[in-house]
């Protein structure tokens, strides 16, 4: 594939581009879908595509085609240059220099090559069976098991040439529990692994089944202010976006980050340490280099509540006169943007059951269904799979409870982080407990 990428760069340069980058991906995928308590469809496919980015007199152009034939790549280079000619100039555009990435081990499992569609079907059936056998009231609305082996190749006119192969297995299960006319809230659980050995569909199925069964028999409650214990999934839904937006250099430069100007300052209680770590191979966001070919390494973003750094790609780094942190993101269908790789919250010192038993008056939230404004941190929504806790003991499931507050204020009232963590694709998150949250009865 490197030859084709070199060809794309040469073509772009011959048309007048001062800099050019080609990024291609080829993948083979097997997927089995679950629907209505049964396997539904098996899918197998191969895809390949290339994105060509060019710079010309300070302007950028981008064109992508899902074909790796020379003639289509030539067209893509031509169109990318044509687009650059009508784009406004921006002196911050540049491509990173040649660099040597230390290649990660643990993101590619050779066994994935022989992982057949029939294996994917077996995994899907196992996940379904586990959930159904937990309790006869469990109804699985949908789910999937996906096995993907992909090769990513990048080259640029500064001499960078990189390639990496990764295998990713991922699975999800979603549904509810039904007991006569009592229908629980939805719950969904996910899992993932780079290796065949790491596949554990049963854990996701059990967690899903337990959550939906626990949310049967829900009762209305009075409005109150109290503690909030979020599961890793709920942390992902309510808290993570506010942080990942605020540590993104792009948001900082666009003045939409709440953390702008706060490097070295406290942004949370000292229980919180956040890492962006593409080298953590437990997370599905692991890879050796970023979308522009900058090598990945661990970035400690928040340490014991203190903001340490923002995340950069080459463009935003140049704007701030710093180095890229290796956070150029995106696929072959778009030019690079900035985002987290694996969002990792360090485990805390408390066990989950201790976090519950220490709660005087509060709610455990399995899922959060609502809106979070990542700019100002305001959130409001409905508690899903919520359970009322009084004097350290779980009382009952709750229904139609709204929760509202502010992520950044809540982080200052973070008063518990569990030792236990869950991997949610490219997030590794603990249970997190906050004080002084407003719950409104529906």
């Amino acid at each position, binding site marked *: 594939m490197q030859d084709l990428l070199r060809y794309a760069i040469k073509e772009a340069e011959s048309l007048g581009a001062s800099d050019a980058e080609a990024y291609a991906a080829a993948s083979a995928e097997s997927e089995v879908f679950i629907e209505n308590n049964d396997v539904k469809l098996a899918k*197998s496919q191969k895809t390949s595509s290339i994105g060509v980015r060019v710079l010309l007199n300070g302007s950028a152009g981008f*064109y992508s085609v899902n074909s790796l034939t020379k003639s289509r790549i030539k067209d893509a280079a031509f169109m990318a240059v044509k687009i650059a000619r009508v784009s406004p100039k921006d002196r911050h555009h540049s491509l990173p220099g040649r660099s040597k990435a230390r290649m990660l081990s643990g993101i590619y499992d050779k066994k994935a090559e022989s992982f057949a569609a029939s294996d994917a079907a*077996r995994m899907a059936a196992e996940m379904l069976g586990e959930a159904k056998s937990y309790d006869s009231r469990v109804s699985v609305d949908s789910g999937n098991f996906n096995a993907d082996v992909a090769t990513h190749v990048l080259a640029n006119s500064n001499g960078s040439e990189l390639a990496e192969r990764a295998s990713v297995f991922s699975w999800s299960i979603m*549904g509810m529990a039904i007991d006569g006319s009592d229908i*629980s809230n939805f719950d969904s659980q996910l899992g993932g692994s780079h290796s065949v050995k790491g596949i554990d569909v049963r854990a996701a199925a059990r967690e899903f089944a337990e959550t939906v069964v626990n949310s049967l028999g829900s009762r209305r409650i009075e409005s109150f202010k109290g503690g909030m214990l979020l599961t890793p999934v709920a942390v992902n839904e309510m808290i993570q976006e506010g942080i990942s937006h605020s540590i993104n250099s792009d948001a900082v430069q666009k003045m939409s980050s709440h953390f702008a100007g706060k490097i070295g300052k406290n942004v949370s209680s000292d229980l919180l340490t956040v890492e962006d770590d593409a080298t953590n191979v437990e997370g599905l966001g692991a890879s050796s280099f970023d979308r522009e070919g900058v090598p990945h390494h661990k970035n400690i973003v928040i340490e014991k509540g203190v903001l340490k750094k923002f995340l950069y790609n080459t463009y935003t780094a140049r704007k701030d006169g710093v180095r890229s942190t290796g956070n150029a993101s995106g696929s072959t269908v778009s030019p690079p*943007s900035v985002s987290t790789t694996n969002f990792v919250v360090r485990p805390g010192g408390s066990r989950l059951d201790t976090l519950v038993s220490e709660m005087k008056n509060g709610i455990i939230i399995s899922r959060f*269904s609502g*809106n979070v404004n990542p700019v100002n941190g*305001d959130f409001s929504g409905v508690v899903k799979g919520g359970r009322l806790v009084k004097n350290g003991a779980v009382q009952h499931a709750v229904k139609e409870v709204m929760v509202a507050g502010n992520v950044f204020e809540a982080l200052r009232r973070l008063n518990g982080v569990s030792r236990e963590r869950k991997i949610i694709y490219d997030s590794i998150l603990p249970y997190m407990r906050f004080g002084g949250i407003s719950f409104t009865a529906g």
Partner: protein
Amino acid sequence: MNLMSDASVTDRLRTLISVSRGASYVEARYQARLTTEVNFVNGELERIRVVENAGCGIRVLVDGCWGFSSTNSLSSGALKESMGHSISAARVLAKTKKSKVTGLAASKMVAGTFRTSVNGSLSDIDIEQKVQIAREGEKAARSNKAVKAASCTYREMLDHKAIVNSDGADVEIYDSKPEFSVAAIARRGGQSATAHEGVGVTGGWNDLFKKNHLEYAVTASERAAKLLDARKISGSKSTLILDPAMVGLLSHESIGHMVEADFVLSGSMVKDKMGQQVASEHVTLVDSGRSEIMNNAGGTIIVDDEGVAAGRTAIIENGILKSFLHNRESAMMFGTASTGNARAFQYSDEPLIRMRNTFIEPGADKLADMIKETNHGYVVKGARNGQADANGEFMFGAEEVYLIENGKVKELMKGASISGNAFETLRSVDMVGDEFHYDIGTGYCGKYQPAKVDGGGPYIRCTAVIGGLQ
């Protein structure tokens, strides 16, 4: 786009279908999509990209199991190989699938070529003009001094599709869906407020810009500034007058998803409610692949991806639950006809039951009367994202909320969340306006794969919980 000539695509698909063996049903869908996107943020070009995605998706039914495979190469060898993969995939399920697909509902298969009617072909508009529109829109969104950040996006999807199946569908479709959206963020001290405006249509350049692009931008700019000074709402159950966008979102999120037949089979709360009164008699709620009542609805599809005409389906008629949304498989299970709701986003996606344009039909009430007859309540406008649950609980955001006191519209309040039970809310509808608009055409619905949808309605008056921050 230099892809396949029209004749050669359908010919190849026909040949492929004719040689399929061992499958009780074969469907081959070619789709070439050209996506163009230009996005300006805070005076700078944030992103410009053009993406071609073309190939063929093949779905087969073998021994009562579905298999799907796709390829980006359209050589006859690659197509045959992909068909082989699809058949093997289906066979893989034979051991684990409990209830086999017994057949597909008989449907009239569509044949012919269909072109979305466009006023101003998008291909004739130079990319330079698309850049200019987005640049000007972003600048105008910063026209109010309180606005400190803004963004404007122009996006278009041009599709060429061919659908051929072993039951006789033989369709070629040319579709065009442009959209334009603006966001303005006003800031003062530690306070910030965001306003969005936009339009998304099925049609051409002039269909998109019936209203000047700068009008959207200036409206967003001014509203963001006003929202800075707005008071917060405290949570309570209230009388609400929902605007067409909120009605579209309510129809889509809280009713539409619950009546998708695949979801009904999984245990949606509507499963035993067919023929029952589920909403007030003022409510007729429709999902249609056509652009009913007004032109250019963003979710218009003409024919679905199983080759069935995508017509009008009354989900609720005068308050009575009348129909679920079906593909051919679910229609067979329910002993009814497909409603033409099988949709795939790209060639590499398999068709799923998805909505199209979902709306409440207009009634006879004047908005002015609805306000006049409300003692205390809110006019709720500017739909943001929403979610709904299997038990009918829904919750979505609204950007623009006006207090009504003693029959008069008072001050603008900060954005809020609306929540409740979908059917309780629809049962509470006591007034339905006479004006109709589609207004969520910039939105995409997600269900493993995106779908371009639209929704709308008249203003309606109902009761639900409003409150919280957003």
